[in-house]
């Protein structure tokens, strides 16, 4: 599904390149649940953003379902992104001015889904995450865990095949975190959604089927069954 070859990213600081990612090679199959770990500043978020097509590397090649991402037209890439990728953040990043219902609905607006269909889809999500009662509340009126549930609902509404999560449990207590992880596992196993998560917690990483460690922009070791390399 995803093949990264010789991906490097650097920032010029004082005229010298400061590498954030160095020659990353990584293959991810559809249906995997990958955990990215590593110390702070090792480039985890950067790598995730590159996979999520939110950021560009300085060098390297990226194939998504066999298509070279950096050779396609911007619009095509945008379509590919909208149809296939859902994002979840540590800081939830809900839109404060919109209520729960509207927040979940937003991605559909950008995919030109018809109004009646949108209604049904959002309704399904609210049901599934048990937040029907909260649909008229605004983000500031929700707890952190509830906000993250809304964030996940929003990431899933467009039925992506790849879910990217940057420290999804970072702001939650361990019980809330565990619930989210259970949910991820279920999504991965029952619906076949490919999941890549960045996490600091060894325990959360265990929910995944594979784990990679980043250190100073390089992949350290491959743990568990080595599917790709």
């Amino acid at each position: 599904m995803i093949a990264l070859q010789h991906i490097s990213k650097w920032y010029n600081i004082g005229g010298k390149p400061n590498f954030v990612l160095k020659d990353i090679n990584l293959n991810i199959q559809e249906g995997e649940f990958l955990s990215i770990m590593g110390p702070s500043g090792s480039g985890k978020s950067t790598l995730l953003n590159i996979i999520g097509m939110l950021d560009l590397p300085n060098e390297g090649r990226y194939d998504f379902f066999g298509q070279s991402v950096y050779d396609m037209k911007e619009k095509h890439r945008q379509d590919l992104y909208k149809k296939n990728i859902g994002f979840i953040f540590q800081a939830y990043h809900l839109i404060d001015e919109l209520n729960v219902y509207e927040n979940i609905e937003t991605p559909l607006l950008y995919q030109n889904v018809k109004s009646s269909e949108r209604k049904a889809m959002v309704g399904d999500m609210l049901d599934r995450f048990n937040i029907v009662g909260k649909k008229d509340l605004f983000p500031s009126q929700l707890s952190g865990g509830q906000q993250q549930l809304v964030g996940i609902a929003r990431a899933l509404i467009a039925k992506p095949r790849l879910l990217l999560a940057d420290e999804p449990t970072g702001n939650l207590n361990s019980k809330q975190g565990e619930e989210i992880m259970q949910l991820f596992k279920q999504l991965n196993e029952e619906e076949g959604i490919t999941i890549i998560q960045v996490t600091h917690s060894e325990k959360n990483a265990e929910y995944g089927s594979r784990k990679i460690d980043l250190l100073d922009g390089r992949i350290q070791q491959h743990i568990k069954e080595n599917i790709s390399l």
Partner: protein
Amino acid sequence: MKFAAGYAWNKEATFEANNKIIKEGGNYGGEDFFRMFSFPLLKGRAETALEEPLAIALSKKMAEDFFGSAEKAYGQTIRFQNKKDFKVTAVFDNVPSSSSLKFDYLLNWEEFLNENEWAKDWGNNAPETYLVLREGTDAKAFAKKITAFIENYFKEPNFKVRLDLQPFGDVYLHSTFKDGELSGGRIQYVRLFSVIAIFILLIACINFMNLTTARSVRRAKEIGVRKVVGAFRIALIRQFIGEALFFVFLAAIVSLVLVALVMPLFNELTHKQLTVPFADPRFLLGFAGLILLTGVVSGSYPALYLSSFNSISVLKGTIRFSTGALWFRKGLVVFQFVLSIVLIIGTIVVSRQIDYVQRINLGYDRENLLYVPLEGDLLKNYALFKNKAMALLGIQQVSRITDNPTNISNATGGVQWEGKDPTSMVQFAQAAVGYDFTGTLKIPLVQGRDFSKDFPTDSAGYIINETALKLIGYKDPVGKKLVFWQMPGMIIGVIKDCHFSSLHDPIRPIVLRLGETADYGRVLVRTERGKTREALASLERISKELNPKFPFTYSFSDDDYQKLYTSEKLVGKLSNAFAFLAIFISCLGLLGLAMFTAEQRTREFGIRKVLGASARSLFQLLSKEFIVLVLLALLIASPLAWYFMNSWLLDYAYRVNLSWWMFALAGSAAMMIALLTVSLQAIKAAFVNPVKSLRTE
């Protein structure tokens, strides 16, 4: 009462002395004139300057024109209108152009009364009298005493003349009266433009508030830290107002430089000689006061608002503006655009009206029409002048009139006809004209014919216009009886209605009588298109021949016409400038709000991008907000502008109609400008890298 002096109106007259014949502009003044007014005398004494009936006071310039210097002029004799000799009893320094009384000579008041018998009539109110009251006199009580004075001498059942006083200093700005009560004058324009200036300053203050509060999001940290380190609220307020004052002070310096640079241009536009009184302590004090006021006004809102931030939330970076504050800020932008749109609509309407004035068919042809004053020997030589002129190349027709066709001001109630309602008070415009009058002015005749020397009976003939005909009500008017000023006669022709006065006034009924030999007036000369220069040269030649003691002068009918509308043209130009300024400053304000909003919504835009929003949809999202604001402004501005411009137009009997396209044009102009202003910010916001805007610290 200490002094009193009559004062008439400016008059161009021809003088002769020292073998020089020159036209000069001047007036008549009562004996006390130089005792009341402080025009400095270079020669002669104020007490005796206008004492004798044949006394004349000259300006330094006029004295130099004829005699070389003030000293040489003093005591000399000068011939007035080739009729009478006057003795120079005083020479005064040239009247500064800022004076509202302007004259190069002043004749004794006796001369005015000699020339104008009618001025001795108690019912006449044309010239004004200036008074100086004794010190300690209560002007109001004095005015009450003289109110009914004239009624002792002037007894008419339907007509009352009352006297009143007005301080001389007020006359220039407050000169329009309606039914004996002050109703306006130049002060209306002073007020109008002051209000606009205040509004523009207010807009600028609003922008400052808006931009400062917007910037404060960035400065929130600084404020938080300062609060934590123990800055008191008062100290914060002082800091913000201090900053505002500093900016206003800088702006004031720039504005003074700009004013000094632009002043010559403004003076040229308005034909004034204004200067900035930099050395006047009152000006400096007022200006300093304005700086202080502006600084405090524009600094107060941000100061109070920002210093009320909760320091903990500020430090955590969780400060968010309440929706109330947001609406307040949007309201300010709407307010600015309301003002701008009203000004744009005003500019459109004024320019349309000026355009209308230029293009309206007056009923007579004002192009290629010359006026030559009838004076001196030309009065008795008019018939000869006409004959000679008609033979010249480039001259099509010649006639004469006792008034100015551009603005016939004389009116009378003394017109009788069969079946006239005896109680009717209707006033007819009136003038005495020469043969071939309608032909010269190219006025179409509806019935009958022009005055002509082929009909000796025309001396008892009258030409009326359609409005007069409607009033009189004759079926076949030509040949019917009409009595004008007790002179019975008959109607020989009916002309189409013409605008013989400014478009402010409706067309009045008019009676024209024959005045081929009247003892005043002007010659009307119709020249051939493109031959005006040749015609003028030949006219000057025959004028020199027939009227050697008077220099040849003339005016173009079209120039006279344009002079009727000097003030509206000035208003037009000034409103253009003000509208431009207002829209410019409003755009700065809009830019401020756009920057602020874009900054406020960076995170939201980042999220939307991650959720799949395209740059275009984000651009639309942001622009839509501002389009709504401008539309709202248009909605508020339209009735306001309609009200103002409608009442401005009501001043004209002939005017353009307000129509929807003016509002649409102003609205779309404002919209276009607003969109251009916002789009850069919107584009920037739309293309921002979401990774950057979502990075948590």
